[in-house]
């Protein structure tokens, strides 16, 4: 037993040295986390800013100008130009010059003065349906506010046409300003841990195959379980380290709240990482070259990110695909991370996410061990 521990320790030291001394592996540990932290933190946001729009004002009245000034004053919208014909509207939207055109008809002020519902047409570029819906939402908001202030004589082309008799007072829990950055960055630790762990572990066996060192390892008195364990540990440590570092950066750099318990986060990440290391070692046992390992890793990363609820809600997927997400470990860690960060999750409350990951980890590790034994022994 003591000998076995000594051998494992020897192997682990060697694996760490191999990662630290291999420029490619070093990049894997340091590069992706930093890049993804900033890319996702700044670029991946559902919030719209700088929505380019144009105006076709046929009314040119005090009222129309007042409405338009509200758009002009909003940080969300950026005026690109004023149009003088309907043909220009089509052109501008076709070549994506603007996302949105406000069309105020000649009758606008007349209708308002007459106390009739006035019409404002909003034309949106629907090619990106998500952006269109969000832009439309903002526009409706501005118009609704104008409405309310004018005593409700204006009706937009958008749904809420009737005079408001009910007033909606909304309050978003957990993310009061509904910043999508909170949503994204809180789950980023899981994603980055997955990428780091998967790349490092999937390269670990195939690197030895490619460099011809694997045979030398196999003829040495190591058991295959010992080799596998030693190959699993360094990627796990690196992955956990990266994920925790990013959790700290999320709080310190992006100002995310950390409402849950740290042990819950560490435990959830650890269980998740074990399940990913199983996948990585499985890929690595299968591949004979490092290139195959990388390809295999990316084949796993792409679908698992999309099917995780990291960006798009799982509830929007067809039912059969929703069932498919149940075997995706990333799904659980994304939920668990958000719970811990935003909702104050503890070990007890994230238990529904923990046990499925543990089951998946057992399955991936078992199959990696099986494959490793069969491909080598």
């Amino acid at each position: 037993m003591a000998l076995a521990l000594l051998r494992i320790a020897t192997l682990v030291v060697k694996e760490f040295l191999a990662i630290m001394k291999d420029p490619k592996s070093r990049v894997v540990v340091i590069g992706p986390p930093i890049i993804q932290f900033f890319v996702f933190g700044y670029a991946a946001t559902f919030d719209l800013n700088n929505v380019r729009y144009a105006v076709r004002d046929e009314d040119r009245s005090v009222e129309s100008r007042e409405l338009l000034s509200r758009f002009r004053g909003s940080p969300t919208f950026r005026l690109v130009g004023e149009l003088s014909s309907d043909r220009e509207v089509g052109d501008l939207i076709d070549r994506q010059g603007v996302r949105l055109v406000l069309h105020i008809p000649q009758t606008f002020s007349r209708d308002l003065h007459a106390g009739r519902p006035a019409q404002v047409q909003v034309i949106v570029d629907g090619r990106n349906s998500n952006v269109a819906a969000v832009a439309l939402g903002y526009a409706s908001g501005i118009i609704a506010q104008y409405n309310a202030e004018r005593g409700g004589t204006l009706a937009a082309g958008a749904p809420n046409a009737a005079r408001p008799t009910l007033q909606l007072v909304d309050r978003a829990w957990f993310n009061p300003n509904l910043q999508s950055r909170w949503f994204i960055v809180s789950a980023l630790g899981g994603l980055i841990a997955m990428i780091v762990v998967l790349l490092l572990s999937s390269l670990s066996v195939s690197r030895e195959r490619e460099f011809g060192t694997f045979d030398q390892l196999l003829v040495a008195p190591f058991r295959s379980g010992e080799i596998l364990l030693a190959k699993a540990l360094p990627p796990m440590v690196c992955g956990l380290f990266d994920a925790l570092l990013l959790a700290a950066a999320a709080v310190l750099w992006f100002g995310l709240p950390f409402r849950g318990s740290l042990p819950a986060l560490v435990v959830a990440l650890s269980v998740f990482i074990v399940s990913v290391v199983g996948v990585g070692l499985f890929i690595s046992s299968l591949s004979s070259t490092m290139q195959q390992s990388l390809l295999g890793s990316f084949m796993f990363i792409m679908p698992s990110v999309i099917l995780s609820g990291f960006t798009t809600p799982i509830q929007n997927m067809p039912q059969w695909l929703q069932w498919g997400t149940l075997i995706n470990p990333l799904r659980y860690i994304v939920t668990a991370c958000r719970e811990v960060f935003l909702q104050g999750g503890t070990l007890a409350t994230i238990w529904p996410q923990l046990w499925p990951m543990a089951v998946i980890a057992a399955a991936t590790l078992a199959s990696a061990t099986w494959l490793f034994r069969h491909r080598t022994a």
Partner: protein
Amino acid sequence: MIQSADESVSERSGETVLGVRNLHKRFESKGGPPVEALRDVSLDVRCGEVVGLVGPDGAGKTTLLRIATGLLVPDSGTATVLGLDSVRDTLQIRGRIAYMPQKFGLYEDLTVQENLDLYADLQGVEPAARAPRYTRLLEMTGLEKFTGRLAGRLSGGMKQKLGLACALIKSPELLLLDEPTVGVDPVSRRELWRIVYQMVDQEGIGVLVATAYLDEAEKCHRVVVLHEGRKLDEGTPASFREQVHGHTFVVQPPPGVRPRTIQGRLAGRPGIIDATIRGGRVRVVTEERDIAAVTGAMPDNLAAAIDVAGPTFEDAFMKLLAHARSSQSHANLPAAQVSTGVSPHPREPEATIHRGESADGVVHTRDLTKRFGTFTAVSEISFDVHRGEIFGLLGPNGAGKSTTFRMLCGLSKVSAGEVRVAGRDLRRAGSFARQRLGYMAQQFSLYGQLSVFENLRFFGRAYGLANTRLAERIEWALDEFDLRGHRDMASGRLPGGYKQRLAMAAAILHEPDILFLDEPTSGVDPLARRDFWRRINSFAEGGVTVVVTTHFMEEAEYCDRMLIMSQGRELATGTPDEIRELARTEDHPDPTIEDAFIALAEGAARPRGKEGSP
């Protein structure tokens, strides 16, 4: 058989096809001093002439050939090919010369015919000229029957011949060959040389051939010896032989004494440049034209007879190399005595054949077979290796040596038959059984990123060494293998010979009982090869059982017993004497192992049964 210069007939005879003048080339190396690949090298190749470029690894042979083809630009000096400058007129030159690199770019998924077609297209050979050229090349290479076979399915020798045919598809005026026969079986080697000489005789081309086989140098009209980028000497094989005339002797061991014992005694002694085993006797090259150095080393009259031997090119080469090395400030001369650290009591130098120590021997195989799909890589190989024996697995590349070897070590699954090492099947036995094994793979298989010391520490610990014992053994290895100066260097950056020594050090650090060495001497220069065999010898003397593969037939002489393989089958098993005996005829009273291989491969000699020795 061997053509000499004046016999070759060519109307353009004597015209210089390659003129190299004062060539310099250096390569920057990361984190080390720049490598001087060529230093002021000049040479000429004329029409109808075969010039050999001979030198150890890293001598600059490939660099010189690549400069001649225009693939590399020299730092200074010129290479003039067919009157054209290799740097300025590269394109014109390429259409008129043929170059066959070490690994010729055959398309393994194309058939023999398709490969020829492809190269004919690439070289722009007129369609009308193709048919007669194909016929001739196929006939010369003996590939007529295989035109429909995929190149990837050819044997190593056939691949090399096809490569040569492709290179010769548009009859060139100058042929550049880079080690065309490495790892090729002896029969194919002779055929390759025959093809080259046919081209020279019939078309009057000039040939520059780099080679690591010293016996091949004898087949050239002229030889240029390179060493570390410098030209050491140049001349005809005869002029080289003349240099060591009277310096060469053979020692005939008395009955019951192994030549290895005598060789071990002579090698490395002052006044003795080289001692090798050839044909069951020990060949010695001395510093002085005097037998005293030999007799002086044999006080107990171990030698039954010492005769003057006819000098060979190899003798002269060893002498040149030894001088070149000793003239360098800190020459890396092999240590005079090799201590194994394995056992303080070397065995008595007696000719006991170790039998009956255990019923099956240390390594035991019966009808060992390996199939990959429908292809049988190894077919019914049976042999036993006894304790303290050096057992050789010999054969050309692709003979199935490495596959057999991998099955022995438990790295590859056995398709049929049985294999036992120290009484166990290594695939089933636990890790403990591997504890007593040392293994050195064919390619460098240590961790290139880790330093020499880290590698040794890792493998030492892997085999259960710890604390002071580990430290002691590492210190021993650093000294023994002359690695102390490179202790903290990343092992991947070590020069070739050092890598090989480190690999061996890692394999024997834990003092294994059984040592598996897969091609330990491939890609190693002749000096280092001798050094290696002396070490292997000393391990065996210390009681270690050694199983070694090699494609150098002459190295078989160092083995106690051997198994010669070809195309996955056993050709013969036995002691060097027994193997040579198979090829002994009245015309050829003193055959080498290589002669025996050729005789066996061509069916001239009848191989023994499964058990090589009675």
